[in-house]
């Protein structure tokens, strides 16, 4: 014998041991079968392996992949979540679970799980800031899209503390709280931030605005005073206080702050305007007007300053005062069509429609293409029963803008009103050439023909109904 029985036995034992060591386990065989047929084999192998090794990440992910490939994704969620809950905070598995929930359209459950993941990540010993932020940002966007305020606020709150863009998230949070009317929560949050950043004027101004929104004027004034103690001559805070005084009709107090603002922001016309208002409302009209005039005199070429004065008067229905300013404005800026419109309106308010008409007549003589003003002129002439003149202007309007259906009809009505039936007929005929199919106008034309004794023409129109339908009135639905 070459070998002894002992050597043979040892050899066989060694082979058996090697075989036991090298034979693939269920996990490996699951991986080998994972592209096979309906995946039932790989699913069974992975499940069997996981029963013995429940914390095995590869087997869990392998089982999930096999179930998905088999078209059984809904069975894949539980093993994945079970594994995740054994290893809370494992971002890779967490993201895999989220992705699976999204793929299987279980979006509400995905949102719930996302928050579970976030809470787990927050208590991790040394969580990666950026990784939490990504998940939080997604949670925020989903909450905003779903209009879930509580979750949006929660996400914003955490992001405000975590993210390098913290201030931006804080602003978003404040905005959301304010939009929802959660003023007390917003105030509490802002006070905390002011404690951390006492010289942040914007934060302090927001607090003042919230106090005012709550209707607590004394508190608002108190907050302004406290803010100005730290930030004296802060224009925003002084402007806010001035506004509080103006709202409360505390004109004298407002005047002081407004004069301060005029010194701090000399180029800002808002302050003299507000000062003028405060003076006038406080019974000092001449002083108020003087302030406005002084602003205007500083730069007569600034159209806006003229308009500030004009609006000052027209807002108070002081048309007698507004009109001379408008005349001077128009003299300086003759192309300002708004000024012309305002002056026309001013004259009308003062009962001087004839002057208004005169202005418009001069305008359309100088600018025959100003269709808008010509239309206004026509309206005024009609008001004043100067129908013949109105009709002449309608003719001029139509010569320039024949596409306006209503103008033709208005012209025909005017001509008929002044007894010019032939003119009315001509207009209607030409109108109907452009806009055929207008039943009412056809009826009117037939009536006019009839009134002129032109029965044959009237009948011909009616017979026209028997002819094939003409193209319709553009855009008009019957």
């Amino acid at each position, binding site marked *: 014998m070459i070998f002894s029985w002992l050597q043979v036995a040892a050899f066989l034992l060694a082979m058996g041991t090697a075989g036991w060591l090298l034979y693939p386990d269920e996990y490996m065989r699951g991986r080998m079968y994972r592209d096979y047929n309906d995946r039932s084999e790989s699913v069974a192998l992975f499940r069997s392996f996981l029963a013995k090794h429940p914390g095995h990440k590869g087997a869990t992910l392998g089982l999930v992949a096999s179930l998905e490939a*088999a078209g059984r994704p809904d069975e894949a969620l539980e093993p994945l979540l079970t594994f995740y809950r054994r290893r809370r905070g494992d971002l890779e598995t967490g993201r895999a679970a989220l992705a699976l929930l999204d793929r299987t359209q279980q979006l509400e459950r995905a949102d719930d799980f996302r928050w579970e993941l976030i809470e787990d990540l927050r208590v991790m010993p040394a969580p990666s800031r950026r990784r939490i932020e990504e998940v939080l940002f997604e949670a925020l966007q989903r909450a905003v899209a779903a209009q879930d305020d509580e979750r949006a606020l929660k996400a914003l709150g955490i992001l405000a503390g975590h993210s390098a863009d913290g201030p931006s998230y804080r602003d978003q949070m404040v905005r959301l709280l304010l939009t929802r009317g959660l003023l007390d929560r917003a105030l509490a949050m802002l006070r905390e931030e002011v404690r951390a950043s006492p010289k942040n004027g914007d934060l302090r101004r927001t607090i003042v605005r919230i106090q005012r929104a709550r209707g607590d004027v004394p508190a608002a004034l108190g907050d302004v005073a406290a803010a100005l103690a730290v930030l004296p001559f802060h224009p925003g805070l002084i402007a806010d206080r001035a506004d509080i005084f103006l709202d409360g009709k505390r004109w004298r107090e407002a005047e002081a702050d407004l004069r301060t603002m005029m010194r701090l922001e000399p180029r800002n016309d808002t302050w003299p305007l507000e000062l003028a208002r405060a003076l006038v409302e406080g019974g000092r009209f001449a002083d108020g007007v003087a302030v406005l005039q002084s602003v205007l005199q500083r730069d007569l070429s600034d159209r806006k300053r003229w308009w500030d004065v004009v609006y000052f008067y027209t807002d108070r229905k002081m048309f007698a005062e507004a009109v001379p300013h408008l005349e001077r404005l128009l003299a300086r800026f003759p192309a300002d069509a708004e000024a012309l419109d305002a002056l026309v309106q001013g004259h009308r308010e003062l009962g001087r429609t004839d002057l208004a008409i005169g202005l418009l007549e001069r305008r359309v003589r100088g600018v025959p293409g100003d269709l808008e003003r010509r239309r206004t002129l026509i309206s005024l002439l009609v008001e004043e029963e100067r129908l013949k003149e109105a009709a002449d202007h309608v003719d001029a309007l139509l010569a320039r803008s024949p596409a306006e259906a*209503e103008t033709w009809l208005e012209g025909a009505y005017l001509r008929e009103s002044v007894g010019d039936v032939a003119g009315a007929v001509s207009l209607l005929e030409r109108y109907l050439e452009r806009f055929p199919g207008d039943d009412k106008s056809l009826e009117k034309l037939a009536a006019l023909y009839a009134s002129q004794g032109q029965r044959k023409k009237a009948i011909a129109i009616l017979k026209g*109904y028997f002819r094939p339908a003409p193209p319709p009135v553009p855009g008009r639905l019957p």
Partner: protein
Amino acid sequence: MRPTKAAAVLAALLASPVGAAPLPRKVLTLYRTSFIPGEVKDTFFLPTHEQLEMPLNWLGLDLEHVDVEKALPSPSALAGVVGVILWLPSTHAFPDPRPVCRWLDAAMRSNVKVVLFGQVGFHRPGASGTPDVDPECKTMLSTLGLSYGGIRRFDPLDVKVTASDPKMMGFERKLDLNDAGELPMVRLAPGATPYLRLEFSDERDLRAEPVGLTPRGGVALSPVFFYSNDQLTPPRYAWVIDPFAFLADALGLKGLPRPDVTTVNGRRVYTSHIDGDGFFNVSELDRRKLSGQVFIEEFLKKRPASPFSISLIAGYYDLDLYKDEASLSLSREAMVRPNVEPAVHGYSHPLVWRTRAAALKIPRYKVSAQMETAGAAKVLDERVMRTGRPLGLYFWTGDCLPLEEDLKAAADAGLLAINGGGGRFDAARPSYAYLHPLSRQVGALRQLYSPSSNENAFTNLWSGPYYGYRDAIPTFERTGAPRRVKPVDIYVHFYSAEKFAAVAALRSVYDWAHAQPLFPMFMGRYAASVRDFFALRIDRTGPGRYRLGGGPAVRTLRFDDPVGEPDLAASKGVIGFKRELGSLYVHLGDSEPRELVLARRPPALPRIEDANFDVSGWEAGPERVRFLKSGWWKSDCVLAGLAPGRSYRVKGAGLDATLKAGADGRLRVFFPDSERGGRPREVTVEALR
């Protein structure tokens, strides 16, 4: 003649069917190339196409995109135009807004409605501060019925919603001022109807009315009419306003008939079409088989009573790999079946039509419009079909954005071409805004869109999850109710038979669809109905009277407002009607004359209420009804207008039974089978004594 008599004669003449006015169905939308986001400047990417055109189609309208940089239509071209829509992306949308404003003003004065979405984009170029709008544009806005005070940043503490119409606002998303940082200071003139009003506490009398109706049209302005969030994947859209109701009101469409291609004989249309990609891929279900073979076995053979429209890629058969008889034989087996309508899916399957990049690399071939259409049809017929009859149906390939020359080549070849479009409407895309319209304008031509997206949209472009197509079911459900905006179209590629999960998903979708009360048809027929939607002419011949011209493949008119009922005795080519989903669906025959007369209480006559088969040769009297039926699936129908409680003998199409009409005069009939697309069979329904 005195005016009153003239009026009376005129009124009588107006009631006559001789005089008629066509219902305008066209809407124009003005755009500039700069409005189109991204690098590819195709109107496909405009929000007017992606979001607005589907509701307009649903309202029976045809949207035409007009590039203002080329030319604005002349006033005479506005005949037949209901309205003009603008969806402007910014406050400075035009280098010089004045010509556009003048044109819009003239259009309104010619009784064309104007509707503004998005921004009030008529700010003077280069101007900062608000408002700075030229006088012509102020005039136009005034004509529209509003005044505009520019854009205002607002503090959430200072603004309150003081009026909001619950029927119009909050359609898919509640109005949320937190979404907005700025508001357009638009104020509607007296006589207008604001749907939303916001007031500012820091300025008395200051208000904004950014959504509302005016006598000349309407406005629905950013940021309060539509929500868009591109921080999510997919981007999230939601309508804050009800786009269907808003457009109907703003364009003055109340009470008008709407051609509807989603429905035939009161049943929602069903189609299934397959693109030829992956026909020769090996299937993991059985690695000895190709996906095409698996598809034939799992679906075509197992559902012989259901129609499929199948396409193949012709270029395969010019490649050595697929020239063998086995490949040809398998291809023929798919295409030449009684329940299959064959179609062409290109020659080299262009993936990007614009760049001519193709999926198949065929030696010595460069993509050409002619070869991809007529040439491909010829190759398929000669090599696969061998019938000598040219194929008539074509499915666009790849990105489905063919150029005008491609569309022309298909039309010249006599091919009815369809594909592209679709959309999803499900948990991840919970809005009508993700649904594409019926078609896409390409120059002077029109590309017809398929109703649905294929499995690529559900499987990350076929990279997984391969079971994703099962999620087509929520889209089918949501596009069917509460408003039916799409038919059901099961649309996949042959490579869906490559994967186990995909086959399981597809099977579940077919099972779902085949359990619904649908009207099955080939895709070619649906494509013809979409083509005819645009060709159809509707003349109003009197109050409640309409005459249809052309467009015979459109088989349904829909009314969404109370209009009475069809008077079947006075109408022609109307075989029935059904009230469903708050609308009246009127079923039309396919040959002229087709004239609909509505009445408040017309006499009851037997009619089809709904049927999942075609009805022709309809003859109906109080005692007897006769018609020819042809269709797919197991046939069933509901007849209405019968004598309540009366017994009827129903004979034909494999049925001979005595059935009793219900107390409501309805009779439900189930046939044992169908014609499976074959010759029509006669059915009679006779009242028994």
